[in-house]
Each structure stands twice: as structure tokens, then as C-alpha cells.
């Protein structure tokens, strides 16, 4: 394109380039990238709300991802009903632990990235491809992570080629690791992992897997002050996304309430819970 268009599509819109939205964004409007506009502050860390515990586990027909609702800033509860588990596209979901603001931006751009690829190419990215795109975004956030604005997502999706649910975890440097059966990230993950290890078994039905996820989140909230437990008074339940061959579905609050109430009442007089 030889000339600048007055109000039409600027040349970079028409240029032949990759199908990546992030790549396009970094050329066209880098300030809109997650953390892209963060300047100043210099050395030292920034205080911002943090999300805490996310669990993921596979079951007979797919994989599920669940997260508590608390965001903390130091010892202070910044938000009681924050959503930390999102549908990334039709066949995958992402849960976030770490700096909430940056993480939510990252989820937003990741969602657009997957949809953008799908529209331009006319086909879905492979699950591995999606996991790798997310890794690249976390790698791009490394400078912010050094300032205390780290994001650690947990990615789960249904592999349409193999017909199974798979889980991917990440580190702050963008390392992407496939996890077997179950995994947890965030401050309460130590306790959630213990619960998952004991309660997970082969070929669980979806309802059983949901109950296991809620038990694990309960255990995390029990021992980690930054993780929020089921809030019976305010009716705040964990967020849960189920991914199967028919797509991703966020579990209804009514079903979560029933499960959470069952876990709480089963633990009355039996703080150790299911085993």
C-alpha cells in the first residue's frame, strides 16, 4: 500500500501476515497488550489483588476446572466473588492464579486470539497449539512478573483429535507442562493437590469429579487464608467449567450450591472430610 488511508483500514490490516491476534496487536496497538501500558514504578513490587486456588482434574468424558472466588491484597480480602475460571473457546477453559488485573487481561486477549485464528483459518487450533499460545503470552509478561505482577494460569481442554481431556500448567517464565490426571495452582494448591491425590480415581463420572473438585477447594480454603471457602451466608460458590466433546459449559450455580452445601454438611463434626 503506497499511501496512508484517510479513514479506511490502515496498511497493516491488509498486509499478509500470520493468523495471530497478539502479533497483530503488538504491531498495531502494543499498549493494549496485557501489561503493555505498565510503565513507571521502576524498581520494587506493585501491590495488586491476587487470585488464589485453581484445581483441574480429568474424568471419564473430559476435564474440569474449578476455582475459589477470593482475591487478596496482602492479608486483606480485595474481592469475595471474583471469577477466575473462564471459557477460552468452545473446547477449552482457563483458570488464573496470580495478579488478577494482568491475568484477566491475559485471558481476554487469549480468548480473542483463539477466536481470531478460528475465523481467519476456518479451523480450530489444536489443543497443544492453544496451550503453546498461552505459554507465549506468559513469557511476554516476564518483565511484569519480576515486578511482582506474575500470572500463573492452568489450562484445560478437550483434545478433539484424541477424544480426551488434557491439563496444562505453566510457570512464570512461560514453561508449559502437561499434567496427568489432576493439578492445582495458586497459594492453596499444596492442600488442594493432597486432596486431589487421595480422591481422584480412574473413570469418574462428571458429577463425582465435580464433588472432588469442591472437596479439594474446601481443603485449600481450610488451610490457606488466601483461598475463599464456600460462602453460605452470601451464597458465593466456586466457579466451575466442564469441558467435554460437546464443548465447554460453566456449571450452574444451583448445582454448585447443592454440592458445596453437601461438602460443608458432611464435614460437620468430621473436619477431615471425604477419604
Amino acid at each position: 500500500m503506497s499511501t496512508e488511508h484517510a479513514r479506511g483500514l490502515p496498511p497493516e490490516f491488509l498486509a499478509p501476515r500470520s493468523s495471530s491476534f497478539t502479533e497483530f496487536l503488538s504491531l498495531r496497538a502494543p499498549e493494549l497488550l496485557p501489561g503493555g501500558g505498565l510503565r513507571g514504578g521502576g524498581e520494587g513490587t506493585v501491590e495488586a489483588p491476587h487470585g488464589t486456588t485453581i484445581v483441574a482434574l480429568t474424568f471419564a468424558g473430559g476435564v474440569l476446572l474449578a476455582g475459589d472466588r477470593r482475591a487478596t491484597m496482602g492479608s486483606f480480602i480485595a474481592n469475595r466473588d471474583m471469577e477466575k475460571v473462564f471459557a477460552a473457546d468452545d473446547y477449552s477453559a482457563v483458570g488464573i492464579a496470580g495478579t488478577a488485573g494482568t491475568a484477566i487481561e491475559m485471558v481476554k486477549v487469549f480468548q480473542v486470539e483463539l477466536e481470531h485464528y478460528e475465523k481467519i483459518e476456518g479451523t480450530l487450533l489444536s489443543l497443544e497449539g492453544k496451550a503453546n499460545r498461552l505459554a507465549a503470552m506468559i513469557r511476554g509478561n516476564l518483565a511484569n512478573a519480576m515486578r511482582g505482577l506474575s500470572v500463573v494460569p492452568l489450562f484445560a481442554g478437550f483434545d478433539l483429535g484424541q477424544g480426551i481431556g488434557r491439563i496444562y500448567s505453566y510457570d512464570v517464565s512461560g514453561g508449559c507442562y502437561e499434567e496427568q490426571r489432576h493439578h492445582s495452582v495458586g497459594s492453596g494448591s499444596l492442600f488442594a493437590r493432597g486432596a486431589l491425590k487421595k480422591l481422584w480415581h480412574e473413570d469418574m463420572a462428571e458429577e463425582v469429579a465435580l464433588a472432588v473438585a469442591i472437596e479439594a477447594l474446601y481443603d485449600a480454603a481450610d488451610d490457606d487464608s488466601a483461598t475463599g471457602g464456600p460462602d453460605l451466608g452470601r451464597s458465593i460458590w466456586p466457579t466451575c467449567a466442564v469441558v467435554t466433546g460437546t464443548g465447554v459449559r460453566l456449571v450452574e450455580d444451583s448445582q454448585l450450591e447443592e454440592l458445596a452445601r453437601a461438602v460443608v454438611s458432611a464435614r460437620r463434626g468430621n473436619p477431615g472430610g471425604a477419604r
Partner: protein
Amino acid sequence: MTMPMYVSPEQLMKDRADFARKGIARGRSVIVASYATGIAFVAENPSRTLHKVSELYDRIGFAGAGKYNEFENLRVAGIRYADLRGYSYDRRDVTARGLANAYTQTLGTIFTQESKPYEVEIAVAQVGAVQDDDQIYRLTYDGSVTEERGFVAMGGTSEPIVTALREQWAPDLPLAQVLRLACSLLEGPEGEGHRDLSAGELEVAVLDRRRPRRTFRRLGGPLLDALLDAESSTHDVPTQDESRSGLHDTLTQPGTNGNGSAEPADGIPGRGQTPGHDSSNPQTQRED
């Protein structure tokens, strides 16, 4: 040194327009038509993978006729425009009018300033909550844009198709009738030049106003066969996708709505309802 020959601007533009029109007329036609529960895109296109019709955004679709690489270029630019706008503002701030304006400027500049004008005609259509809110824009090689009511036919020999649509199209036709009408018009009049088109030679997609968020669906397989079959009782697409792996393709068996239960006879459930809004902020995205 040879003196450049003087060509009047009038003649120059006329030559360019003739050149572009000739290129467009070589291709096959595309029809975009509004129907009771959405907007249908019908193109004669034997390829399963090189599309003339595409999704631009949640409620906006694209159709191109003419030179493939040129309208493909515009399609990708439109997706970039829509996704960037939806990402930096909100999903509801992406409109067909905005896209049409961006396209018209771009095509106009290319027509007057590039060494060769684009040999394309494109349509940008946005499905509304009710049929009166449907918007269909037709853009031509020189950047002129018109908002059309009800339907658009582009490419190939589109004049007789437009004339026939003006006589036979009605706003409240069900999808099956619109598709059969479009198919018969693409086949051409009886006699010379008439071709029998089967479902496999057509590229068909809809923007279904009853769906939340992404309304674009490609139609194929047994569902398209049933919709094109005058004997069949299938009038419309199911509002829910079939439980199967894959993209947003509606390939459902006729008579089911994706849950295995029977489709209502008229196939128009929930007509006129305002679709739920999905925000682009993940924190407010749930539809409760």
C-alpha cells in the same frame, strides 16, 4: 523521452471500472438474503475449504465475489478490524456500519490510487434482534456502498437474480424457502446456461438471530439436503448445535434440535426475543 499521453480523469475512471466489472462478472454469483429468523448466505462454490462466505464477528457476516485473493484480503482485514475494536472497546461496539465504512474508504482509495483496482464486490451483513434491525451493506470495487433492504446479489450475472428476488422474496419467508429460491436463481433460467446445483456445489451459511453471542453457522450435510428438499418438513436450522466435535458447523440430522428431541413444527422458537449480551470483559461474561 516520450510524452505521457493525456487521459481525462473521466476516461481513466471509466476504464478502471470496466476492468473491475469484467473481472467480477467472470465469477459465480453470491446471494445474501434476510429471512424470518436470520440472514442466509448462499454462494455457488464447489470448494469445501476456500470460502466466499465467512464470519466477521458475533452477529456480522461477510460475502465476497470476484477475485479470491482480493476479497480474502478484505475478509482478513475485516476480522482484524472487528477483533481489535471488540477487544479495545466492547463486543457490542463492533458494527456492520463501522466495517462498511472502513471497507468503503479502503476500496475507494485502492480504486483511485493503486495501479489496479480490486475486482471485487462484497457484502457485510449484521443480524438484528428482529428482522427490521437487519443490516445488509453492499460494497463495490470503487468504494461505493449501499444499504440494501432484505437481500443482495453480487458477482457473475447478478442483474436477473436481483430482478427475480425483487419479485419473489418476502420478509417472512422461512429459511428453507429462501434457500430453495436462492438455489434456483443461482442455477439460472431454464434453457441455455442452466445448471443443476446440488448441496455439494453450494456454500451456505446463516447468521441465526436466535443464538446468543456468535450467530454464524455453516450449513452442510444432511441438514442442508433436507432444507433444499421441497418434500422435506425441515424449515429452519436447530437453535442448538448437535453434540459433536468440531467447529460451528450445523450438520444436524433433520428433525432434531441437538438434544435429540424433536424440533417444533414451525422451527421458529423464541422469535423476537432480544438475544443475551455478552460482554468482552471476562469478569462479566456469564449469562445468568
